[in-house]
C-alpha cells in the first residue's frame, strides 16, 4: 500500500514536470504567441500589470540604496525593453498599485473583450499580496481571464511574480502562491508561462541581497532586474 502511494506520488510529480516542459517547449519553439490573431494587419502586444509592469524603480542600479520609491516617472520597465527585443510594439498597461482582484480584472477584460490586442502578457498580484488575497480567489479570477481570452481568440503569456525581498519579504508567501497557480493553470490551459520568479531565485541564492532589486525596498526591480524580466519574457514569446 505504502509503495503504491509513493509510486503514485512520484508519477504525479513526474507527469506535472513533463507536462510543464512539453507546454513550454511547444510554445517557445513554435513562436505562436506573436501573431496577428485579430486580423487587423499588425501585431499588438499588451503588457498588463501593476507598478512592476509600469517600470517603477527602473533606472536604479545594483548597489544603490533605495528605501522607498515615491515617483513612478514615465512608463518604462520590461515592456520598453521587450519591444526592442521582439521588434513589435508593446503597449505598457501597467497601473501602479493596482490589485488584480479589485480593479485589475475589469480593466484587463476591457482589453481582452473585443479590441485590437493580439497578445496579453500578464503579470499582476503583488498588490493582492498586501491584502492577503487567498489563492483560491486568485485562481478563479485567473482561470476566468484565460477562458475569456481563449474564447476571444487572444494569446496570453503568464509572467510569474518576482518574489518580494528585504523590507517586503513577508509578501513572498502570497506571491509565491500566486506564481505556482500561474504555472498550474498554464499547464492545464496550454498557456505558456514566463517564469520570472524562477529566474530571480536562480540568479539570487540570497534574495535579501539580490542585485536585481532596489534595496532595501525589495519590491521593485532595478534596471538589472527589468533586464532580467525582459529576457525571460522575450524567450517565452519566441523572440
Amino acid at each position, binding site marked *: 500500500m505504502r509503495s503504491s502511494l509513493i509510486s503514485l506520488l512520484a508519477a504525479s510529480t513526474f507527469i506535472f514536470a513533463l507536462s510543464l516542459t*512539453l507546454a513550454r517547449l511547444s*510554445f517557445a519553439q513554435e513562436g505562436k504567441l506573436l501573431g496577428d490573431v485579430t486580423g487587423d494587419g499588425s501585431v499588438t502586444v499588451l503588457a498588463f500589470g501593476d507598478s512592476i509592469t509600469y517600470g517603477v524603480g527602473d533606472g536604479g542600479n545594483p548597489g544603490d540604496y533605495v528605501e522607498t520609491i515615491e515617483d513612478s516617472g514615465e512608463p518604462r520597465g520590461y515592456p520598453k525593453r521587450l519591444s526592442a527585443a521582439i521588434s513589435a510594439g508593446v503597449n505598457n498597461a501597467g497601473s501602479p498599485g493596482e490589485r488584480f482582484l479589485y480593479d485589475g480584472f475589469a480593466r484587463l*477584460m476591457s482589453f481582452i473583450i473585443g479590441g485590437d490586442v493580439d497578445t496579453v502578457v500578464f503579470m499582476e498580484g503583488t498588490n493582492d499580496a498586501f491584502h492577503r488575497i487567498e489563492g483560491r480567489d486568485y485562481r478563479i479570477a485567473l482561470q476566468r481571464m484565460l*477562458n475569456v481570452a*481563449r474564447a476571444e481568440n487572444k494569446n496570453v503569456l503568464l509572467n510569474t511574480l518576482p518574489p518580494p525581498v528585504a523590507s517586503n519579504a513577508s509578501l513572498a508567501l502570497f506571491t509565491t502562491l500566486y506564481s505556482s497557480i500561474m504555472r498550474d493553470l498554464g*499547464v*492545464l*490551459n*496550454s498557456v505558456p508561462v514566463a517564469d520570472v520568479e524562477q529566474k530571480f531565485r536562480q540568479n539570487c541564492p540570497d534574495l535579501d541581497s539580490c542585485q536585481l532589486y532596489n534595496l532595501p525596498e525589495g519590491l521593485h526591480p532595478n534596471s538589472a532586474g527589468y533586464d532580467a524580466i525582459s529576457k525571460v519574457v522575450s524567450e517565452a514569446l519566441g523572440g
Partner: protein
Amino acid sequence: MTTQPNHRLSPSIKTFCLSLACAALTACGGGGGGGSSTGSGGGSDSSYGVRVLHASVDAAPVDVISSSGSSALVSQQFFAGDKGYRSLPEGSQVLSLTRTLNPADVLASFSVDAGSASRYSILFYGDLQNLGLRTRLIEDEGPEDISGAAIRVVNGVAGAATLQVSITSADSQLVGFGQNSEYIAAPAGEVRIAAQRAADGSPAGSLVVNAQTGRAYTVLFAGEAGFYTKAVLFTDR
C-alpha cells in the same frame, strides 16, 4: 527447480504507466495560447460518440474517460470550445468527466450503454461562486426526418434562469438554465440565432449558422450573464 521470470506488473507500476500514458496524450494535444480550441488529444473525430459542452467561464478544461479504456476520449475541452464527438467504445460503460490532467479528479460519472450510433453530450455548466459546477448528460437523439435543417439550443449561461431564444422568424423559445430546447426546423442557408435573458432582455449572444439540408445543429449559450457570454455552434449530424 527453475523459476519463470515474472512478467506481471505490480499495481503501482501499472498505475504509473497508465497515468504517464494519459498525461503524455493530454500534454501533446495542447493548442495555441488562447484562440480557438485546438487540442487534438483524446479520441478521433467522429459522427457518433461523446462530446462536452463546456459552458462554465469559471472552470478549467476537462477530459472524458471511459471505464472501457485507459486514455481520455475527450481531452482538454475548454470553456466555449467546439470540439465535436469523439468515438466511443460500444457497450455498457461509465463515462467520467474529469479535470484535465487529473484523471482521479472526477466531476461527474454517467452510466451509458453505447451502440454504434450513440451520441452523448455532457453539459458542464454553473459557476464556482454561487451555483456550483453542474453536469448533465444529454442523449443526442436527433430529429427523425429533416426536410431542411434542424437547430436546438442549450442554455449554459449562469445567471440566466431562462433564455428567450429566437431562430430566424420562428416563434421564440424559452430554455431553462441547464436545459436544451427541442430541435426546431430551419431553412437551409444562413440562419441567425439570438438569445436574451428572459428576466430583463439583456443579450446573451448570437450567431449565424450556415445551415445545410439534412443537418442538425446544437447552439450552446455559454458563460455568465452580465460578465461574458458566447454562442458556440456544434454540428450534431
